[in-house]
């Protein structure tokens, strides 16, 4: 549904709540050129959240919500964890089932949507924590990639179980001291991006949420490739400031530190030749359209 369908009678304008007026003035729902620059003005997809103050998950949520190409035709699948505190406040249709089964739920959803609406675009995006994606749900994550399910999996990697109070996860760094790992984690951070590549993902990216323009680019790319070609995977560092002992304002710096050369979240992406050709083609078309538009002006 697009907001153009909701028309407000001008006579009633002065009694319409401010929130609603803002929505009418600034909503990007239904527009094709939406992106991270709308984060400040468009609040229709996520206005408030109940995470810790300054939690980078909340910033990542905003950047992603602003970047998904067609929110009106998107279904998001959540999982249990801190992200599940945000979904009730997100205005994209979403479902939370259990801890770990998100990629299986998404498989059913995506197949059913494709079956019921063969001529329409219906994007499915999974957004889950590292515990959900890599530990308890790993079999379902991998199996959906093996089967080439056409949806995007986004992992909010905060390298621990934030929601249950800071226990060890598969994506935690080796040696990190956590509850239930008081002597430090014993094995290496699981190399899920590499596993994703080997398991059939057409596009994989590792990043932090420090650069909104980058988040926009990879999110759009991931969703569009999943729509046309095959599974895609994004692993985004969203440090749990509470459990690593940082202040509310320190999340951004933590992300910047972790993405410098040689660090674990140094930006990297992988794309199959087929997916690259699709993106090149799309960009070329966009460019041509722009040229044509300016020639007409």
């Amino acid at each position: 549904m697009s907001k153009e369908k909701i028309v407000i009678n001008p006579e009633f304008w002065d009694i319409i709540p401010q929130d609603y007026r803002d929505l009418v003035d600034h909503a990007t729902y239904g527009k094709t050129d939406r992106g991270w620059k709308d984060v400040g003005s468009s609040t229709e997809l996520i206005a408030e959240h109940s995470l810790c103050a300054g939690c980078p998950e909340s910033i990542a949520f905003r950047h992603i919500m602003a970047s998904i190409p067609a929110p009106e035709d998107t279904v998001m699948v959540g999982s249990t964890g801190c992200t599940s505190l945000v979904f009730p406040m997100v205005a994209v249709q979403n479902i939370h089932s259990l801890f770990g089964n998100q990629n299986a739920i998404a498989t059913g959803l995506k197949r059913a949507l494709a079956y019921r609406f063969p001529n329409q675009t219906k994007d499915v995006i999974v957004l889950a924590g590292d515990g959900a994606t890599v530990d308890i749900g790993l079999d379902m994550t991998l199996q959906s990639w093996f089967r080439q399910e056409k949806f995007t999996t986004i992992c909010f990697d905060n390298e621990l179980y934030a929601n249950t109070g800071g226990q060890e996860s598969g994506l935690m760094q080796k040696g990190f001291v956590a509850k239930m790992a008081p002597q430090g984690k014993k094995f290496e951070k699981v190399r899920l991006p590499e596993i994703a590549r080997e398991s059939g993902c057409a596009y994989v990216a590792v990043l932090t949420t420090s650069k909104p323009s980058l988040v926009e680019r990879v999110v759009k790319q991931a969703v569009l490739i999943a729509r046309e070609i095959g599974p895609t995977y994004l692993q985004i560092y969203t440090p749990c400031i509470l459990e690593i002992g940082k202040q509310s304002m320190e999340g951004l710096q933590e992300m910047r530190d972790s993405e410098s050369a040689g660090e674990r979240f140094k930006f990297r992406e992988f794309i199959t030749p087929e997916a690259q050709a699709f993106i090149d083609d799309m960009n070329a078309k966009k460019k041509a359209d722009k040229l044509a538009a300016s020639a007409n002006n």
Partner: protein
Amino acid sequence: MLEALEGSQAIARAVAMCRPQVVAAYPITPQTHIVEGLSGLISSGTLSAQYISVESEFSAASVVMGASAAGSRSYTASAAQGILLMTEVLYNTAGLRIPTVMTVANRAVSAPLSIWNDHQDSMSVRDSGWIQLYCASNQEAVDTTIQAFFISEKTEIPVMVCVDGYTLTHTLEPVDLPAQEDVDAFLPPFRFRRTLDPGAPLTVGTLVSPDFFTEARYINHQAIENAKEIIREADDLFFGLTGRRSGALISQSGNPSGKTGVLVMGSVFGTLSDALASHDEKDQIRLLKLRSFRPFPNEELREAVRGLETLIVLDRSLSPGSGGGILGMEVRSALFGQKSAPRIINAVAGLGGRDLPLSLLGSLVNLSKSPDTPEFLFADIKRSRISEEIFPVKKTNHAEKSSWKNFP
């Protein structure tokens, strides 16, 4: 010596005193503090054991089963979704008669999603073949945990120790931890007769044909029935050691010749006991505390209700479509056809963490006064909260509605 301990810390220390050799667990609220406590005790060297942080409850249950099969004393803990995710392993462990102990920090099962206390999780696996003991206080949780290893190893049946999430796990109470020598005397080192050993090879878990399946099930059924004796024995022996009992299979308080009975499991017993002390009609009331839900003490229950006119069974879980609560059904079936059996009122209350206040006793007892009280009811429902908003089936997606117009 009494110490002020959070239930979870007390349980972790009680487990450590039992000297488990393998602990495997996965965090889930409200169980997490127990296994965090154990990981701390192991890392500080207080307890010498293997601690395995796994990736799911399915693995946690499987790891401890493997450890016990190899002859080690093993332990895990979980709650709610975790218990249900373990279900397949739980049946398997009991069916293979592999002893182990698990604490269930009782919590509601999703959906609706809740992290708060009721008994739906352990009740949902009541047919798995595990022994289930419910604790009324943190002291009972400590004592029952130690007894559970004894019971499990003697019967070769796994034991669940059920403690109310938050109400017990997160509450500080004065608790007496027995002396280590006493625990060692009570609980000799684990010796498993059927341990996997290349010197005397065994196959465990093979396919059983219809020729023997019934007999194998019969043997397991008999074994858990016979466990009643061992549960009683454990409580007696523990009494000899510490001067404390946890109530064997079922126990009673209040007036033993009171005409109105209230039967409960778990920590609500403490609330009702407190309420009883100042209740106007306390002479009329008999409180029954069911500790062993599996095995279910049919005989002992019949004895305990003798002379009651009304028995109110408080349920903390539901079996939707059955017409009642789970405990209520079990009690009804145990008393069915008994001469002068009391009238049974089955009340569900305290689901998903709803508070069970002191006034609960009065309202339950009042139910017995009206002949119109139904056999089953939700005792603490707030009807004014049943709004259109919380009815999932009253919502229709607008897009769906418009697409239906296309149908003839």
